[in-house]
């Protein structure tokens, strides 16, 4: 009898990090990831673990992986003891590999296509014990994710064993591949987005594990481990409190000097529209927290709403298993929703309002009914943090407005339009005039990417789309800025060369017809003014490359050293 080849395999990981326990044992999870025959490393088609420690100059030998269809299903650590999980570097390598693959698969599922890393190459290199330092980061130039380790109070702390940290760094690498211009100095919100989005993916990825949801509920519940749970414990405030008292407290406290205690901060940040205008929240890490808080708040409100629909098993009680299942499913759906939105976001100069409209529109396309009111809750939650849909979106629904009018496909070949940047460029060029795509005439224009994708909606129908991004660049001397900018900083020297950018995302439907043109136009005077003033005040024009450095950003986040200031020379 031949064994059936499955598209996925299961590997053991540590559910959050070694400090989150269940009955005195490390809480584990088996995660499902794409199946492949692994070379020692593990070394797979997208991830290559090289376990080199640069502080001590040690290269660890990798494990020879058992065949996929062997007795343990190709998981050498299925029955390993806790002590072994902590002390075997080969397990650390597996933990990092499995979490990275899980996040990658999550992105590919949501976007309906292969997703590349943010560098030229297929396999990201991963150093699970890169150095003795309280830091972890994605490095584009090294094509790698690096995770540090450091002696904690009672045992060695390994960043690669922390689910949220691995997921966070992986997200940076993927986001950089999807939207390469998001690391450019732009608005404070674009800088905040990379961090905030990585945190959102990390937290939702952790909450999508039922065992973690169970832990959140248990830690703050008086009648633990029973089959029922009192409905009075399931209000937004109570759940918020459980997250705070439970998981945020449990999650390796020592690691908060790496990740800066995201969960705690984002849950503590109660809804208020004041943050977004507060100067202290102009600092990117701080500003990112607003975005995370708005999403986590959505998670709680959808969860509570859905629990209302579950029948009580006894008066005032719900079935625990169902409560947990709902929580994990909601986290999982929200995660997909967030990732999917990237395709509907503008390629340059992103602001939170753009992201909100992107989430709403992409979800509307695939799930028009919104039975569980995700979109309504999301919009409400974002609004409670002062984030409203983009000005260019429909006033009432917050959705991007569909392209109407006289777009020409006349000389375009549909087949090429789905994958060929030159074909897409021709389309853009043919439609460049004011009443169509409205490109800025004097700028350099380039197509950044063309990506065909296929998604399956909950109704079972396929949604075929092609997503293309283009950008426009113009270099002007400060004295020429009035062409595009109203409000020019007074102390900017007239001869100073300033680069302005703009661009748009084009979404074509299954017939090659343009559905959406999501545009941060070069000619948007208001946004260009805001952006130039922000960058000038904070001295970004002096040293732009420094802002692509995640190692530095993460350290500044941990030490809370203010990275940006208007006072420097």
């Amino acid at each position, binding site marked *: 009898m031949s064994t059936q080849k499955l598209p996925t395999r299961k590997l053991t990981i540590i559910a959050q990090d070694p400090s989150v326990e269940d009955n005195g044992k490390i809480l584990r999870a088996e995660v499902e990831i794409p199946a492949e025959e692994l070379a020692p490393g593990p070394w797979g088609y997208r991830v290559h673990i090289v376990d080199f420690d640069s502080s001590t100059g040690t290269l660890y030998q990798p494990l020879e992986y058992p065949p996929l269809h062997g007795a343990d299903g190709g998981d050498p650590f299925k029955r390993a003891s806790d002590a072994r999980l902590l002390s075997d570097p080969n397990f650390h390598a597996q933990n990092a590999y499995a979490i990275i693959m899980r996040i990658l698969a999550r992105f590919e599922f949501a976007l309906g296509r292969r997703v590349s890393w943010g560098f030229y190459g297929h396999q990201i290199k991963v150093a699970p014990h890169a150095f003795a330092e309280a830091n972890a980061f994605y490095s584009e130039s090294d094509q790698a994710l690096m995770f540090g380790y450091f002696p904690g109070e009672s045992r060695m702390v390994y960043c690669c064993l922390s689910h949220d940290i691995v997921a966070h760094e992986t997200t940076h690498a993927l986001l950089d591949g999807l939207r390469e211009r998001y690391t450019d100095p732009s608005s404070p919100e674009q800088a905040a987005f990379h961090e905030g989005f990585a945190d959102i993916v990390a937290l939702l990825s952790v909450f999508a594990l039922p065992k973690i949801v169970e832990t959140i509920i248990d830690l703050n519940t008086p009648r633990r481990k029973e089959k029922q749970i009192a409905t009075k414990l399931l209000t937004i405030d109570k759940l918020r409190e459980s997250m705070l008292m439970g998981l945020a407290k449990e999650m390796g406290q020592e690691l908060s000097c790496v990740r800066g205690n995201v969960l705690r901060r984002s849950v503590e940040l109660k809804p208020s529209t004041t943050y977004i205008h507060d100067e202290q929240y102009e600092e990117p890490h701080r500003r990112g927290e607003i975005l995370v808080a708005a999403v986590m708040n959505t998670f709680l409100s959808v969860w509570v709403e859905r629990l209302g629909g579950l029948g009580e098993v006894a008066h005032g009680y719900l079935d625990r298993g169902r409560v947990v299942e709902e929580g994990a499913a909601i986290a999982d759906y929200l995660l997909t929703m967030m990732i999917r939105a990237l395709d509907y976001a503008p390629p340059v100069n992103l602001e939170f309002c753009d992201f909100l409209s992107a989430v709403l529109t992409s979800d509307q396309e695939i799930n028009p009914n919104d039975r569980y009111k995700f979109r309504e809750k999301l919009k409400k939650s974002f609004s409670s943090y002062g984030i409203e849909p983009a000005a260019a979106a429909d006033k009432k629904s917050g959705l991007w407005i569909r392209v109407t009018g006289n777009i020409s496909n006349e000389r375009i070949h549909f087949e090429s339009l789905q994958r060929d940047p030159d074909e897409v460029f021709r389309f853009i060029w043919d439609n460049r005039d004011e009443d169509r795509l409205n490109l800025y005439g004097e700028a350099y224009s380039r197509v950044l990417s063309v990506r065909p994708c296929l998604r399956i909606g909950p109704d079972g129908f396929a949604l075929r789309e092609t997503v293309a991004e283009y950008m426009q660049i113009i270099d002007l001397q400060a004295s020429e800025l009035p062409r595009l900018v109203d409000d020019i900083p007074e102390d900017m020297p007239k001869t100073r060369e300033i680069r302005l950018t703009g661009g748009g995302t084009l979404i074509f439907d299954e017939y090659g017809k343009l559905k959406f043109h999501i545009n941060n136009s070069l000619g948007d005077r208001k946004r260009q003014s805001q952006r130039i003033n922000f960058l000038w005040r904070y001295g970004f024009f002096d040293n732009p490359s420094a802002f692509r450095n995640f190692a530095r950003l993460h350290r500044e986040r*941990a030490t809370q050293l203010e990275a940006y200031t*208007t006072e420097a020379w």
Partner: protein
Amino acid sequence: MTLRSYQVGFGDCFLLSFHYNGKTGDRHVLIDFGSTGQKKGMGENLMLRVAQDIKKQCNGKLHAVVATHRHKDHISGFATNKKKTASGDIIASCNPDVVLQPWTEHPKAKVDATQAPGLTDKQSFVAALGNMHAISEAVLIEAERRKSVLGPTLFRELSFIGEDNLSNLSAVQNLMHMGSKNVYLNFGSKSGLEKVLPGVKTKVLGPPTLKQSKEIRVQRSKDEDEFWMFQAMANQFAIRTNANPFRQAKTYSALSQPPFTRWFIKRMRSVRGEQLLGIVRALDKVMNNTSLILLFEVNQTRMLFPGDAQIENWSYALSKPAIKKLLAKVNVYKVGHHGSRNATPKSLWSGFENRLSKKGKKGDLKTFVSTMSGKHGKASSHTEVPRQTLVDALQSDSEYYTTQELKVKNKNKTINGCRYEGTLCIACEIKF
């Protein structure tokens, strides 16, 4: 008054003398005395010669010593030796009446067990400062070991900042004991100079206490102090012989590393160097921000000595309108942190009313910088010290004095205020 800025290479050493009429006579305040690097041609035993000159100029009696913060380039001159012949011994023999230091140096703020639970915020912060010395020490050892992989430029910068942040025990002890009285100051405290400098108003404008900082910043958390604690432990672990978190694990010998790992290993080694530099830079900044900021006021003259205070330290004082008003009248400014880009807040500078270029006003602003270029940062990343754009502003808007110009006696070029010892210039001396 006379201000002498001594030639100490990369460091600070200022002797501020107040000339009184009658019985009071002259009163001398030494503000910092340290160096982390000297150029060739400055002669041997520079610090000792400077100490001797200080003693001579103050007639063997210092009235106050100010140590703005504990960086080597501000306190190394206070170091002593067993024979009691070091520069610090000479300063101690001038029996200062009072020694001024920032609140972070208060012996009671220190704790032995850095990991003891239940530390107050203050103790936890001071413990973090202590950990920074340990980190610097470990980084220097690691850098020395990996010198060949790091490359000369990176190695030099690591060693420079690393050494500046080493603890300097004998200097610290000397500062604790040399004066009849020690005062530890924060924003708003009484300076302790009231008796020794009659008629001089001294305002303490920094560093703020943690409580004061909280008023203007999002709440600081202890995570930050923990970061330094864990970092110190990590660096110390890394320099242990045979450091390896997995004793049992199989490893490759250096010669048997598979070819497909080599490119990456090379990259990682250079990342490690950058990491170390990032860490020492970050801790250097924290330490700079413990600097005392003093404003002396006498007969319409306001003299500002901010040590190495960077923007974070300054921001508390600058958040107070009344203080900004006071600062607007400054006539003498000791340029912060050797002229680095982060230590003369632009809003402070633009607020100085006595700048020469201020329209309709004939300014009399004098600025003094003690610095040495080529030691710190690089122009390509706009981090060079002194920062050129700042130097340009200082030169055009003030009467500008820099120790960098103080060199060997040269018939063709006389430098304003230069006082020679033999053919070597030892200090820039300005009376006002």
